């Protein structure tokens, strides 16, 4: 009799266990579902935001392109009509160059962004003299550096060379330096470093500017995103620089990361692995030994 009772109790207990387990797994499924829904909502929000930013870009492009163009036209007209002293002419010429440089830089960014989004950008590797590439990037920004009395420290070996895509890497570095110059207060210090590691090359652009708040950091690589947006924004540009840099680094199999602390400045670090050029370049003909017999589809 007591045995029977025990057996009953056992069965009851097992049932309770089973019910409990089911409830638990249901609860877990519900939790998972909630998590997935939350993620979907997050992505949906992000895509909507991206669309909004895109239309903002289109309305903004007018100012960004028209204003420098108007300056260039006004200044060159002044130059054409005034027979003023040589210093004035030189000064106007310098102003025209700066406006044209800014415009050209922005247009280049728009073009490369379009090329990247169309999937038409592909890397072409060659041995690049990195030291001279980095010096070129600094020299191209010389007028801005002087204007804002910035100090640019070059910290890389004089004979650094690396197999990479010079054009793409130059665009990345131009954008990083341009950002540092644009968003740092007058007289700031910027450090440009490069060096080899076991597996590739590290580059970094470090500034002593205002830095970026932690909650804003996640968005810096989004396209058309500037931290200060709207009609009152005080910095020119389209918010394409970092998203382009990220896409170009992806293309070269590299990485880009931005670390920043508000009030202490920012550092952008790039890493480029040694490209396996022979695999890519000769993949069409050689390399056959690594592969099985061909099948046709």
């Amino acid at each position, binding site marked *: 009799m007591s045995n029977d009772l025990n057996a009953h109790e056992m069965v009851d207990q097992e049932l309770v266990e089973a019910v409990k387990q089911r409830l638990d797994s249901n609860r877990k499924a519900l939790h998972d579902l909630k998590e997935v829904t939350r993620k979907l909502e997050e992505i949906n929000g992000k895509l909507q935001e991206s669309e909004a930013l895109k239309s903002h870009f289109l309305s903004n492009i007018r100012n960004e392109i028209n204003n420098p163009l108007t300056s260039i036209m006004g200044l060159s007209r002044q130059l054409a009509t005034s027979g003023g002293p040589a210093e004035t002419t030189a000064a106007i010429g310098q102003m025209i160059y700066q406006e044209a440089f800014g415009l050209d830089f922005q247009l280049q960014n728009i073009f490369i962004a379009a090329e990247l989004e*169309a999937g038409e950008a592909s890397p072409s590797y060659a041995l690049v003299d990195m030291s001279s590439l980095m010096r070129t990037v600094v020299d191209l920004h010389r007028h801005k550096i002087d204007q804002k009395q910035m100090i640019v420290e070059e910290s890389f070996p004089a004979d650094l060379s690396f197999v990479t895509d010079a054009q793409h890497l130059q665009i990345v570095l131009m954008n990083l330096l341009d950002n540092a110059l644009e968003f740092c207060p007058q007289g700031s210090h910027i450090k440009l470093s490069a060096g080899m590691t076991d597996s590739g090359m590290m580059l970094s652009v470090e500034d002593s500017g205002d830095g970026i708040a932690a909650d804003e950091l996640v968005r810096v690589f989004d*396209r058309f995103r500037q931290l200060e947006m709207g009609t009152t924004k005080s910095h020119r540009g389209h918010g394409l620089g970092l998203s382009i840099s990220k*896409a170009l680094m992806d293309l070269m199999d590299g990485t880009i990361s931005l670390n920043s602390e508000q009030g202490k400045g920012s550092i952008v670090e790039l890493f480029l692995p040694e490209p396996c050029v022979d695999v890519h370049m000769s993949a069409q003909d050689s390399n056959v030994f690594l592969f099985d017999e061909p099948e046709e*589809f």
Partner: protein
Amino acid sequence: MVQEISQPELKHYLFPGGLFVDPRPHLVTTVLGSCISVCLWDPKLRVGGINHYLLPLWNGEGLSTPKYGNIAIEKLIDGMLVLGCEKQNLIAKVFGGAALWKNQPGLLRVGDRNAALADELLKKHNIPIVGSDLFGEQGRKIIFNTETGSVLMRRNRARVENQQG
């Protein structure tokens, strides 16, 4: 048997994340791991296009490049239409989607998700998949002849681990 017909002289190496559509006959080569290449071909105009995407969906971060399947497939179809193709004539061949690591749990298998996305999107556009070689653990090298629509595929002897694409 591989037919000995005249091969296109123009060659193109397609990098991961790239897209290639051109009216001229080309031999397009690409190497795939967990990535997917969709080859579209129009038998009427005898032109083709190909993509090579790494991840299934663009999540709104960064640029909307054809590194992501939903972008890459839509842009490839758009590119074919720009060449003058009609959508109902297009046929597709799909390759890649290998598993990078053995025993990876289902949700994380990017190759599977990449392949599922190609299937889904091509169905949505009513483009039939007339040939495919998917999954497994080996990388693949494909050569797409955009003039004849034929794809020559070689399986990598080594396992796919650490291979990009």
